[in-house]
């Protein structure tokens, strides 16, 4: 349970997340609205977001999005000061509409993906990723 100064500082940041979470959630909603142009977003049926339930290292969390036939997918870390992770665009010759990357998470939060499908509709998937101090397991 010993915590290094660096971890303590990181936790301080994580603890702060609880306060401005609402403001950042708005930033996430804004980013989605911008991506969709205000169109309706359905719950995912053809979009899969894969992320760990608990991050092994909050500074580099592997995530993957997969939406066969999608034109583009935006990924957002709703609890980060700047939620924008990136937008993956797939050209007509792309063999698959899948992308994986590693992202940094300020604390426990929902990671959100929204896909623009080939027919112009939008789908959304999200998953909570927990960032924990750890220790004491066994």
């Amino acid at each position: 349970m010993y915590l290094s100064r660096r971890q303590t500082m990181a936790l301080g940041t994580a603890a702060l997340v609880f306060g401005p979470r609402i403001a950042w959630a708005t930033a996430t909603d804004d980013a989605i609205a911008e991506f969709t142009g205000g169109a309706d977003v359905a719950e995912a049926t053809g979009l899969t977001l894969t992320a760990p339930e608990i991050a092994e290292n909050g500074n580099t969390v592997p995530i993957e999005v997969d939406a066969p036939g999608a034109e583009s997918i935006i990924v957002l870390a709703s609890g980060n000061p700047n939620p924008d992770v990136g937008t993956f665009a797939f050209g007509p010759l792309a063999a698959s509409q899948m992308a994986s990357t590693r992202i940094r998470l300020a604390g426990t939060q929902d990671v959100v993906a929204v896909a623009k499908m080939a027919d112009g509709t939008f789908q959304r998937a999200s998953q909570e990723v927990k960032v924990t101090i750890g220790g004491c397991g066994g």
Partner: protein
Amino acid sequence: MIPRRHFLQAGLAASALWGTSGFGNWSRLAAQQSLTQEGLIGESGSGNVTLIHITDIHAQTQPIWFREPSINLGVGQAEGQPPHLTGKAFRQLYGIDDGSALDYALTYEDFTALAREYGRMGGLDRIATVVKAIRAQSPEAILLDGGDTWQGSLPAHRTQGADMVHLFNALGAEAMTSHWEFTLGIERVTEIIESELQMPFLGANIFDAMWDEPAYEAMTSFERGGTKIAVIGQAFPYLPIANPSWMFPDLSFGVRQERMASVVQEARDGGAEVVVVLSHNGFDVDRKMAADVPGIDVILTGHTHDALPEPVQIGETFLIASGSHGKFVSRVDLDVRDGRMQGLEHRLIPIFSDVIAPDPEMTALVEETRAPFKEELTEEIGKTDSLLYRRGNFNGTWDDLICDALLEQRDAEIALSPGFRWGASLLPGDPITREDIFNATAMSYPAAYRNEMSGEMLKIVLEDVADNLFNPDPYYQQGGDMVRVGGLGYRIDIMQKQGDRISDMVLLASGEAIDPSRNYVIAGWASVNEGTEGPPIWNVVEAHIRDRGTVSVAENTTVALKSEN
């Protein structure tokens, strides 16, 4: 789909062990002095495939005391469900009489009195007798080890797990999965797998962290009883979080449910008629995985140390819980016909060390592994007036003793001790030997640190650990029981969200509320951070016991569950 009737028959078959009317006959048998080796091991099962499951032995080769938990709370879908039942509720569900042998083996009340009546449990030489007896009935039986095998005793610590690897090879285990194994460090684990271990080391969910690709074998196949059985390994999902990731920096774990689903499919595509998962997920994670991943027939659960006298059925999957510390061996007979599992019989065999005869070959092998440490092991450090135990969601008396040692020997205001589930018990009046101290502390990152922490940080730590235990979604539960505290009292409401569970934190020395802005001197052990400094915890505990001569530890009343007031 296995018809429910078939499962009921399986339950009856299990109860045939005790007579005609179920588990309740235990105490009568014991009263009649008819607790026999043959009775415990039972008759041959009716299936064509036999599995033998041992898990979480934590390097306990000797018969021991092990008190089961009084508090083992379930949240979310696990609330009030086995294994989250203790004491009377547990006895009622399974029809176990008060004071019976099974009461002693599976619950906690009157532990001391029942322990004196029924004797110690476990012992690898007794386990060997049971394994041999099952193999005599069912020569093709498959022996599977659920992990947490190479850690937890002085000889295992000194030999870096070599003793247990050697003994489980000799026992004839045919596959294993892992958790504490990795706390030996990746170099030692690799050395064992390459040159000492004579069985597959399975982990479908162990990945190379850099390339995100499988790092260990996911499964192994057996052709037995005229059928093909796939055994998939699932290591403890939260190793890099719950244990020091710097000891195995290139590995990533996680539940990886999609990966499990694809390995199950691969097994079926490869012709497996039965799919068994040898799991170290912990019971609640396995319960969810069984519900969400189709195609698993049996999950041999581990990690959470639960022992259940009957399987738990989730959909078409049967969950088997075989306890810990060598107290139990599970025998599972599967009836496999026409390409699928048609029925299952299960027997949880309690290893009463005074009833089951030791296997002389295994006794000799175990003695060989212990001989180099004999003097060290047997040295008597002090005595205990109290029952010392650990298992349970909150402080046990062993933890309180360790916390007292940290407070006094390290001159701290507050002590923190990890919520491990392993550690044998001691009865009032027992001597405390060095072996006993190691049984409660032996691991590879034992430094007893001393530092300062603010009251605010302390609250964040307790909230974080509480969420890792009481998050309603088991996939978000990271591992151990609640961190144990000394010098600190608090109240906990497990049904709240992270940040709102812990209240009324009090510094016991002064009776004052914990001040978020003040720094407190903290002593603890088992830090997951590299470079933690301090003497090994066993030295701290030994010094404390020597100072006292005889230790007395009152039942802990400083951690209050909210509902109790």
